């Protein structure tokens, strides 16, 4: 039974890690307080749903399709909206408060737009539904596929940021925007790339959710909350922190509630969140600002 719980935790943990990574890219790099992130996840979920059910795309490819569509949307939004907001901001604080309002508006538009366009009722499809046995633990195929897809995405993102020139450039921007400009990093181009990756990954995560659960215009809120809890836990701008934080939250949610009771879920998650805020406001992996 323990293994069953741990495997379940891995499935949600991998998903949470992707969502938190994507939110951390947007918030950590550009300081855009993206409270519409859950809605970007939702848009990806619908993209995945329609690619599979209307166009007959294999679900695994639909994940990439959702990434591409959302990434493109992120790019357009950056050029048309975010770049101006970043340019006009006087300070980090004013950028955060302006972007909060903008993203709040975006979330309302996306939610209501989706409800108008697709109707409010949930939609679902069934794929990879066979039960797979992994060392005595039974798990539905779609959850295994979802977990594998998320682990792959996390590894790909971490390798990209550890090894590639652009990954290093974005990390430099996260670490110190001034220093990044001094060494000659093209901030605009790096932000564009961040938007493609961040919003693309949110869409990818949405399509992964669609593999397992019904999708609806209102599904985003819970993932936004989880995302912010995790990036505060793991540290703003700390990509590895988001991955560890995602797994930690999933463990609290499955194993933690098994040890205490289902009603302790929110207490465990938000209790840990508040404890970290009090004891290590910079997050588990964060350093004090130098």
């Amino acid at each position, binding site marked *: 039974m323990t293994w069953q719980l741990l495997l379940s935790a891995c499935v949600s943990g991998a998903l949470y890690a992707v969502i938190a990574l994507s939110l951390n890219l947007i918030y950590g790099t550009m300081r855009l307080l993206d409270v519409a992130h859950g809605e970007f996840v939702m848009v990806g979920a619908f993209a995945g749903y329609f690619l599979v059910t209307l166009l007959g795309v294999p679900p695994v490819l639909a994940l990439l399709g959702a990434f591409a569509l959302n990434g493109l949307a992120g790019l357009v939004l950056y050029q048309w909206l975010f770049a101006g907001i970043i340019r006009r901001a006087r300070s980090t604080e004013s950028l955060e408060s302006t972007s909060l309002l903008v993203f709040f508006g975006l979330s309302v538009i996306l939610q209501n737009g989706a409800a108008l366009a697709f109707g409010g009722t949930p939609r679902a499809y069934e794929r990879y539904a066979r039960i797979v046995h992994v060392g005595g633990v039974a798990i539905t195929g779609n959850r295994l596929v979802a977990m594998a897809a998320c682990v792959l995405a996390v590894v790909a993102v971490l390798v990209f940021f550890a090894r590639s020139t652009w990954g290093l450039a974005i990390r430099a921007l996260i670490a110190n925007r*001034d220093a990044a400009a*001094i*060494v*000659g990093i093209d901030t605009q181009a790096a932000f564009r790339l961040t938007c493609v990756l961040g919003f693309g990954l949110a869409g990818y995560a949405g399509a992964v959710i669609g593999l397992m659960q019904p999708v609806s215009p209102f599904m985003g809120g819970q993932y936004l909350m989880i995302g912010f809890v995790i990036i505060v836990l793991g540290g703003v701008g700390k990509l590895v922190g988001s991955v560890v934080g995602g797994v930690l939250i999933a463990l609290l949610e499955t194993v933690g509630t098994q040890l205490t009771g289902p009603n302790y879920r929110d207490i465990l998650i938000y209790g840990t969140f508040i404890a970290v805020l009090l004891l290590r406001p910079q997050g588990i992996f964060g*350093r004090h600002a130098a």
Partner: protein
Amino acid sequence: MATPILSVESVEAGYGEVRVLHGVSLHIAAGGITALLGSNGAGKTTLLRAIAGLLPASGGRVAYRGTSLHGVPASARVDQGIVLVPEGRLIFGDFTVEENLLAGAFCARARSRRAETLEEMYARFPMLRQRRRQMGGTLSGGQQQILAIARGLMSRPALLLLDEPSLGLAPMMVAELFAVVRDIRDAGITVLIVEQNVRATLELADDGFVLETGRITLRGSASALLGDDAVRQAYLGL
């Protein structure tokens, strides 16, 4: 006279409503070391930031090799060969030494020769090779300054702007640092250096300028400045 590598003409700049530079003009010939002197708050850092493109000039003109830099973003200036090693170093504390260096070679011109340049830096600064996997933030002050300079050199600059590199260093480190600056000049890179360590700087430099409250008040060869009474009084405590 050949086209100066850098021309600053009546540049005005500041922060918000506060004007710091009130029409600064100076020309720097390619190849030498130029010292920029001035007391605290004179606007030296502000001038370097304006040259590097980190701060917009509200008036006047900055030209590099005869071409105006107006509207050219900081990243593109690095690509053209101007790099700043800032006051306070601004190295990436959470990056390894090697990552810090690689970040310095981001611009397109330097990126393709990144491995080669990295090897040159390691050859020149063996300390960095030894500590290549160490986090930048764990280095000593002097080591961080070397790292900041090496990171600047990774972009293969033609003009290096050094803002108070000796700040906070132990005297032995300072001597080593000045040797490094000389090496850089000998390698053909033009250096504009801001220093509190006036005597050592003027002994090393070819030319010098004195900036006071946003205006150039003195200019001349380094040896002439070293002999100037005003300079001796204000900066050498004689």
